[in-house]
């Protein structure tokens, strides 16, 4: 065995350190190992010395040019080791010991067992001894010496643990077997040694192969020995770190992929709302560049009226642990402010308010529009329903007032409700849009035609005209009254009677276009000379009063000698006329 277990053990606490050229061998070696602090324990495991191993803790004595004495100092300034340096910063000491395990053993026998702290000057471990202890005990590091061709000349416990080869089975063999076959084929070991020789040191991270063929990610460093007889190589297993880094990289890649591909605008921010990252979607949507949007620059894309609540939301978020706001964000392509729902949460499981927050802004503009529209539609529906009930109520009252008997009341009321129902059906079919005048008239006449109207008795003719939906109901009720009267007493009842419903249009193609409709009955024998009913009925009031009041229509109702004549001039839609 190249290294025997020492009677003193050293424990190492390691952390990375910066390089410092020209430091003595021990220091450099420790630095290679990433060791900052060494503790020496005695037999019983008690700490007997601790050294803060840094250059500024070194004390050098001796005149210039002559041999220098160097002490390793404990944190409190106590000397724990003394060595005489024959050359400056030579690593010869290292190579001596690594190459001569027997010499090491011999030296070990001389090792003092006294407490080095209580007697620091006498019997404290020398710097070289310290190094030997460190090398032997550095079980987390594989430390090996190689000759010029890469043949292993020494092998520490750490190397055995990491690579699986015991020292006696690897010493004397080609050290390149710890490289992967691919790297060996690519001459990586040779290149590494050449670089080490040329630069005094070579470092690299690569996959290595253990005795059992398993692989690990090793971070290695190789340094040439000063006498040119070979190299010292130190190797650490960084597989876990590499895996963790890989995991982190994958997770960051996943976040990036997600954050840059979802339709939402993603951002990363301080808990104050100061942004430090915005996704590409944000930049494209708002036109505010990445740099401009940093800090509170992103507020520029928020509607001026919404900025106060947007910023205030961050104060609230720090108490609730969640940012939530609806605000308008300007769309670069057309300058439109679109409603967005913006949410953010602090990163990490601890929900630390002072950590970074990640948030998204989702475009809810169309949804909000639909909700508004739904609200309006519901109100409109309510309005229509209640209005219709009010109309039914008023029809009932008028019918009661003008009917002579209960039978008449029932018939007339039912007839009027049916007419109301028909026009409602018509309105529903066109979604309460404009109604075709001809369709409305034909519908009313057909409904009354069940009584057996002979063909040719009725003529309906006129150019296309569209009634506004607000007029349709009252207009339909008026036609219903005329038709009912004609069927009961007039042209539709009497064999010689004729009914012509003709209309024309007046007014320019623009505002205030009117349809002038003539309801002309002929060949009717009127009950008395004047033809005028004794009592003014519901129909008369509807035509003579309601149409002018409600539709701003001009009407004229006459009971001529051979039948009823009625003229209604009512406003129509200035556009949207249909064929027919």
């Amino acid at each position, binding site marked *: 065995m190249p290294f025997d277990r020492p009677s003193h053990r050293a424990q190492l606490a390691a952390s990375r350190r910066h390089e410092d050229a020209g430091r003595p061998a021990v220091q450099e070696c420790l630095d290679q190992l990433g060791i900052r602090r060494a503790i020496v324990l005695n037999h019983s495991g008690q700490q007997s010395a601790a050294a803060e191993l840094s250059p500024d803790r070194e004390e050098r004595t001796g005149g210039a040019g002559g041999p220098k004495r160097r002490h390793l100092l404990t944190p409190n300034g106590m000397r724990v080791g003394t060595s005489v340096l024959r050359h400056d910063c030579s690593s010869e000491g290292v190579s001596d010991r690594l190459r001569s395990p027997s010499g090491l053993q011999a030296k070990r026998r001389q090792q003092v067992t006294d407490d080095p702290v209580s007697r620091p000057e006498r019997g404290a471990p020398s710097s070289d001894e310290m190094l030997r202890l460190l090398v032997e005990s550095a079980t987390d590091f594989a430390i090996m010496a190689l000759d010029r061709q890469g043949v292993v000349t020494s092998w520490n416990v750490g190397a055995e643990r990491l690579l699986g080869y015991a020292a006696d089975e690897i010493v004397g063999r080609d050290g390149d077997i710890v490289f992967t076959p691919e790297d060996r084929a690519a001459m990586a070991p040779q290149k590494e040694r050449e670089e080490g020789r040329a630069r005094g040191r070579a470092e690299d991270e690569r996959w290595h192969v253990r005795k059992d063929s398993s692989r690990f990610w090793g971070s290695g460093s190789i340094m040439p020995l000063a006498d040119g007889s070979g190299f010292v190589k130190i190797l650490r297993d960084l597989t876990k770190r590499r895996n963790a880094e890989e995991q982190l990289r994958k997770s960051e890649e996943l976040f990036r992929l997600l954050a840059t591909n979802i339709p939402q605008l993603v951002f990363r921010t301080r808990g104050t709302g100061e942004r430090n990252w915005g996704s590409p979607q944000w930049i494209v949507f708002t036109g505010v560049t990445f740099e401009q949007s940093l800090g509170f620059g992103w507020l520029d894309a928020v509607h001026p009226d919404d900025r106060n609540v947007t910023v205030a939301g961050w104060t609230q978020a720090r108490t609730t642990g969640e940012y939530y706001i609806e605000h308008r964000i300007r769309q670069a392509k057309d300058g439109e402010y679109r409603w967005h729902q913006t949410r953010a949460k602090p990163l990490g499981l601890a929900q630390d308010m002072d950590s970074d927050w990640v948030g998204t802004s989702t475009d809810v503009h169309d949804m909000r529009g639909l909700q508004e529209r739904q609200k309006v539609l519901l*109100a409109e529906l*309510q*309005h*229509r*329903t*209640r*209005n219709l*009930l*009010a*109309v*039914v*109520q*008023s*029809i*009932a*009252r*008028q019918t*009661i*007032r003008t009917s002579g008997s209960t039978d008449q009341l029932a018939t007339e009321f039912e007839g009027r409700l049916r007419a109301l129902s028909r026009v409602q059906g018509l309105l529903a079919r066109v979604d309460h849009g404009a109604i075709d005048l001809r369709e409305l008239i034909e519908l009313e006449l057909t409904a009354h035609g069940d009584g057996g109207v002979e063909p040719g008795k009725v003529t309906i003719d006129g150019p296309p005209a569209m009634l506004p939906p*607000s007029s349709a109901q*009252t207009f339909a009720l008026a036609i219903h009254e005329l038709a009912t009267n004609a069927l009961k007493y007039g042209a539709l009842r009497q064999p010689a009677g004729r009914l012509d419903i003709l209309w024309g249009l007046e007014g320019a193609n623009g505002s205030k276009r009117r349809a002038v409709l003539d309801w002309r009955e002929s060949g009717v024998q009127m009950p008395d000379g004047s033809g005028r009913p004794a009592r003014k009925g519901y129909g008369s*009031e*509807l035509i003579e*009063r*309601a149409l002018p*009041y*409600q539709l701003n229509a001009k009407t004229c109702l006459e009971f001529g000698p051979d039948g009823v004549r009625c003229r209604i001039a009512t406003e129509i839609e200035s556009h949207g006329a249909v064929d027919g």
Partner: protein
Amino acid sequence: MGLWMADAARRVLEGRHVLVVEDEYMIAVDLARALADLGATVIGPAASVADALALVAGESALDLAILDVNLGVEKVFPVAHDLRARGVPFIFATGYDQWLVPSAYADAPRFDKPVDTRALARALSTSE
């Protein structure tokens, strides 16, 4: 007298001038008749904002107004504005929900359509 007529015996609006704004003729006539039965002198009815504003401007004596919110394509609120400026109290008669009434007039009494004239009469008599 009609089936749903208000209690005519209680002429709570005797001598009062009441403006009616309602675009549906039959409803307007009904309402006017009911108000007359309560003893009111009916101003109008008016079917449009313009007609109603003209009546408000032209009538020196106005004690109360009953306003339909939705007048075809327009809303009655300009009339409410003028009435408030004159200090004339008004009542909304509407099929609309309360939220559509601007907050400035949210305190005005509201009657759902169809208006129950007896309930209206009761409300008016208690407010007298």
